[in-house]
């Protein structure tokens, strides 16, 4: 099969760029620990409200300025509704759903994941800037999807 000389150069540049890009992605993911949120824990969606720690959603201090936030995402809101943390706090979010699929996103941060019934999603973020951060549901979950939001206050 004949391949034009320019096309060979073009494809070699393309393939080289692609190889470099994939290597960088792998280094990021596995050497630098920036893998996507892929938590494997499971939970019975019909028993979320009686399974600790999701029976009492809220913040738990686990270290020097580090917190575990156990939250539920349901049609159409998040629990707990009010969370306050000091500036510089690291928060490990653990979120699950007792009903349908929801999204969990904090704009202006890298926190953005799906909340599936039956699974516990988690991701970590350090809040270095004070402010009132919006937490919103970004996966369609029903008629009140657009009101499903809460905030986390960083002081």
């Amino acid at each position, binding site marked *: 099969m004949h391949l034009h000389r320019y096309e060979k150069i073009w494809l070699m540049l393309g393939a080289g760029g692609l190889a470099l890009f994939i290597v960088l992605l792998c280094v990021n993911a596995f050497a630098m620990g920036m893998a996507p949120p892929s938590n494997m824990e499971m939970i019975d969606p019909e028993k979320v409200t009686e399974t600790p720690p999701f029976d009492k959603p809220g913040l738990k201090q686990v270290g020097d300025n580090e917190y575990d936030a156990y939250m539920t995402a349901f049609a159409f809101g998040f629990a707990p509704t009010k969370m306050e943390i000091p500036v510089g706090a690291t928060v490990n979010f653990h979120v699950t759903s007792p009903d349908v*699929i929801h999204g969990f996103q904090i704009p*202006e941060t890298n926190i953005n994941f799906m909340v*599936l019934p039956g699974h516990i999603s988690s991701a970590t973020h350090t809040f270095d800037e004070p402010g*009132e951060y919006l937490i919103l549901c*970004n996966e*369609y979950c029903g008629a009140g999807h657009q009101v499903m939001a809460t905030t986390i206050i960083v002081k």
Partner: protein
Amino acid sequence: MVIARKIDDTLPHVPVQRSAARLSLAYVWVAYIAFGLAAVAGMVQGMVRGGIMELPSWTNYYQILTAHGVLMALIFTTYFIVGFIFSGVARTTGGSLHGAALKFGWAGWILMTLGTLMAVVTILMNEASVLYTFYAPLKASPYFYIGSALLVVGSWLAGFGVFASYRKWKRENKGKTSPLFLYMGVTTYILWITATIPVAVEVLFQLIPWSLGLVPTINVMLSRTLFWFFGHPLVYFWLLPAYMAWYVCLPRIIGGHVFSDSLSRLAFICLLLFSIPVGFHHQLMEPGISPAWKMIHVTLTLIVVIPSLMTAFSMFAIFETTGRKKGGVGLFGWFKKLPWTDVRFFAPFVGMLFFIPGGAGGIINASNQINAVVHNTIWVTGHFHITVGAAVALTFFGVSFWLIPALTGRQLTKTANRMGMVQTVFWAVGMFLMSLAMHAMGLQGAPRRTDYTTYMDHPLALGWMDYQRVMAFGGGLLFVSAILLIAILLYLTFYAPKGNTEYPIAETETTQEVPKILERWPVWIGLVAFLIILAYGYPIMQQIQHQAPGSPPFVTW
């Protein structure tokens, strides 16, 4: 009624014979009816989200969003593609379809239309406001799922029709290389049938029994994996027919030749191989799938860059060689020699331009860390509006401008051509404004698929409102363009003067050797199967063996 006037069948010079032309037009017109309804839904959505209008109490945003998604992304595209491929197969295999192909074609049309009606009626009754991704455990009416299954099965029958034509051609032309268009049509249907098997499994064995109440719960993770097994090749099913028009029809329109027969075929084979085993890149942000499996899918996804680069090279090679042959000199002189006032060239060309940022955005979406910034934001909506809604749709429009008159035995008049140019410009400007606003807003975190909201007047969300107005304005331009398009197509079907319109099929300039291996289907299908088992075998086994507790159905709208 004028609309019901019969398509003229007295003209002898129709390049595709009447029986095949009728079948093809039946598909194309259902496509455009769906397109018109979807365009109305789309415009309303833009205005609601932009805060310009409110919906009456008998409907809601998500119902209209479901209608827009299903009609535009599933019905318009599938019908148009089936109709276009049938016409091209007839054109390149002697002008007609044989009995078996016609029978499969009409049986497919009937099943698909039945399915479409079922799905649309349940959406209109607000019993299926689950969006076109129908993620469990949102539960639609069982008729919605049955309708979707009929749509898929109907499209398989159409594919069998094309396979039958291919086999007949091969039998009658032993040892010869098949026509390029036919080859590409076969590849497209192999991709489509492979891709739709898992979604058929999801619908038949998971969703239908569960929505009928025969089983209490559903394995949500497995349903998502099966859906996205289908969901990504779906976008290649939209893209491949557009590529067929680019590789085979466009060179003829500009007066050139196919750049390379074997490379065109190879590009299609690569797209077939690397579009299916990649679904986890749509599930990067969810729990229950390990990062290693996500990375395998990301890598396989990105390899698709290679056939895309081959296509880009071929297109511009055709443009340049043709332009030079027409007397274009200097580095870019050939560019001026292209037929810029011919809508059959102009519309797909504008589509190609949209595909450049579209492809770049696709690389961003597929990259597993960067995806966290844009996942489920309206950036994604912007992305697929410039790929499917612009690159593919503009190509389909450009094809329709010659396909419909060629099939009805009418002429693409100067006026119709000029109106088509205007329509293309409206579509391009509307899509540019709308998707630019969507991309910008998505980077700031604005979610996709949501009704008008300011999140209790949160300052960040209030800052998105200006973009949403630009989005609505772009949507308005798109709606005007859609109306204009339907008017032109009605004219070309029923009112344009009778005459001949060419069905453009280009050939290579010299005889080219095509490696035999490219037509050894068992090899390619085997490779597809191998890649699928590699990418999905273990994860799906895991999802069945170690599944999360199941979910009961919910109706939350």
